């Protein structure tokens, strides 16, 4: 049998039992239930519905035995003093047992609770817990960097009226990692959440992000993908309370044979809710982006607005993108628009910039930079996005007119 000796063995129930030993019973029960879900879901391959557009050849997607999450956090001392909690999730399961237990026990309506979310829920070995008490207004962003680990788990709890920004950067080198992020936004809270996926170019990186918004809460998320060989990201936002609002942003820069698979859910469960989604991908070489965006507006969610746009810029002839919107709208008094584009840099824009003296490559670069800048600016916190612009810059150096 040809096996890769470098590779960690697959996860099994014994590995989960190992984790459960030193934990409260309720957590063990949750882990076991999640593991059962994981076992019941088939290992995706090229024939699995929802995976057919991807080419998985040569990518090992088997879930490995859990390896501990290694992370650092950066928090302003003043914010800590005023009540902001940022700590290891394993510690929080004891120190903030009630909150953590409640958050982990939420039943998610999400459409894509899949195999990797299930194994991440079963096998997480530590992660980060962020807790902003009611009406807490953070002065500085909370920065989280994850450098290693198979099943990172992040939980952000924003109390009523709290305001904070969390910037989470993934640089795992592990061949496969699958993380779950829970964002719980209390009434009137304003939360910005940035997720950067800059994992090793050989890695398969899964991230399942779930947000729950209470009345009048506002959540702005930005998923920035630049690393990994294969990345699948699910972003599910549940607008549970009336007046809740969510801006969902996504930005991918892909090259070589990188593949990015994005799935989003805009779940309108209450009246007067608003969601505005803009996912963009710039695709170089032979890279591939796949986007599936679901908008659900429940019968009771009247006077809601949902917008969805997916823009793909093909920088080389070998690059490709596909996009699929899915609408499930049961309310009648709503506004909903969606649109998608796939194509090379616009010829008229290119000509316009060249007519001002810019060489073809410089013109193309400027246009691609602009394509990105629009999203960074929408996120509205340059303190955490400026470094991303510099991360993209060296890659843009290769961009030329097609």
């Amino acid at each position, binding site marked *: 049998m040809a096996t890769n000796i470098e590779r960690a063995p697959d996860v099994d129930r014994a590995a989960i039992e190992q984790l459960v030993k030193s934990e409260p019973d309720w957590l063990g029960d949750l882990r076991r239930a999640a593991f059962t879900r994981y076992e019941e879901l088939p290992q995706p391959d090229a024939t699995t519905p929802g995976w057919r557009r991807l080419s998985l050849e040569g990518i090992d997607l088997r879930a490995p035995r859990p390896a501990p999450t290694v992370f650092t956090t950066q928090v302003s001392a003043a914010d800590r003093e005023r009540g902001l909690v940022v700590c290891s999730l394993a510690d929080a399961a004891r120190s903030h047992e009630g909150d953590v237990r409640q958050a982990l026990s939420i039943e998610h309506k999400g459409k894509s609770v899949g195999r990797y979310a299930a194994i991440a829920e079963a096998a997480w070995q530590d992660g980060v817990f962020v807790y902003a008490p009611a009406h807490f207004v953070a002065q500085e962003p909370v920065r989280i960097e994850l450098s290693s680990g198979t099943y990172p788990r992040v939980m952000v709890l924003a109390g009523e009226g709290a305001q904070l920004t969390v910037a989470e950067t993934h640089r795992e080198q592990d061949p496969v990692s699958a993380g779950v992020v829970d964002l719980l936004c209390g009434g009137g809270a304003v939360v910005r959440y940035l997720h950067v996926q800059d994992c090793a170019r050989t890695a398969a990186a899964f991230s399942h992000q779930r947000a729950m918004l209470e009345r009048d809460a506002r959540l702005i998320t930005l998923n920035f993908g630049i690393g990994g060989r294969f990345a699948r990201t699910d972003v599910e936002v549940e607008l549970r309370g009336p007046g809740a609002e969510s801006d969902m942003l996504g930005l991918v820069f892909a090259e070589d044979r990188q593949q990015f698979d994005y799935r989003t859910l805009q779940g309108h469960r209450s009246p007067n809710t608003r969601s505005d989604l803009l996912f963009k991908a710039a695709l170089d070489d032979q890279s591939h982006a796949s986007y599936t965006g679901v908008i659900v507006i429940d019968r009771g969610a009247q006077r809601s607005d949902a917008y969805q746009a997916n823009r793909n810029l093909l920088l080389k002839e070998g690059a490709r993108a596909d996009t699929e919107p899915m609408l499930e709208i049961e309310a009648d008094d709503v506004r909903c628009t969606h649109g998608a584009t796939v194509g090379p840099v616009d010829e008229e824009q290119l*000509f*316009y910039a060249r*007519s*001002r003296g*810019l060489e073809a490559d*410089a013109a193309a670069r*400027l246009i691609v930079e*602009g394509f990105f*800048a*629009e999203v960074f600016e929408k996120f509205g916190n340059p303190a955490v996005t400026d470094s991303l612009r510099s991360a993209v810059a060296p890659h843009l150096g290769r961009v030329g007119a097609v």
Partner: protein
Amino acid sequence: MADHLLHITDLHVSVAGNEIIRGLDLTVNRGSVHALMGPNGSGKSTLSLALMGHPKYTITKGDIKFKGQSIVELSPDERARLGMFLGFQYPSAVPGVSVANFLRNALMAHHKGSSPLTPAKFKQLLDNGIRKLKMDPAVLARYVNDGFSGGEKKRLEILQALVLEPDLEILDETDSGLDIDALRIIAEGIEAQRTGERAILLITHYQRILNYLKPDVVHVMVRGKIVREGGPELAAELEAKGYDPLIKELVEA
């Protein structure tokens, strides 16, 4: 004559398989303002885009000389750096790229290898232009033409000309869709750029802007050719009688 800034001979241009410019001759001298007039669809924009080197507009015959050099093989950016400028009838939006950033890149492309563009010099150039055109300085932070009104777009085209200081300015219907105040400001902005060295080729459908900007030469274009040339009085005649008598005359000939 080597002194012509722009010298077009027997130009034929096709777009989407149709010949639109059919044997056009036109000469523009330094220091003068030329008006190019003609009915809608006569090929004025096609000519302007072909002059600037738009890839969709193919030159099938003839030659364009700028500063004595044939430019038909040059790329649009080479033409720009040589001193040509086109104020577009329909300028493109460039989302995510601020006006200031766009202009900085354009200026740097123009001055490659020569004296560096200091931030102070750049700011002064922009401030100057903004003031002359009575624009809101906030425009500099907005994305190029993104969500601009018709009038704002036209002003931005002129602002770019002011900053880039070309030798030849081809302004395609920069006067259309403007209210009377905006028209005057734009005309003054163009007038301010009149120097002994620079030439302006003003493409217009109406004589209105010529009340503010006296042309030295008026060319009339119909169906891809120059059919009449004259002084400012020709524009007045067209304004009074319209293009119909001219077209009729041509059909009968």
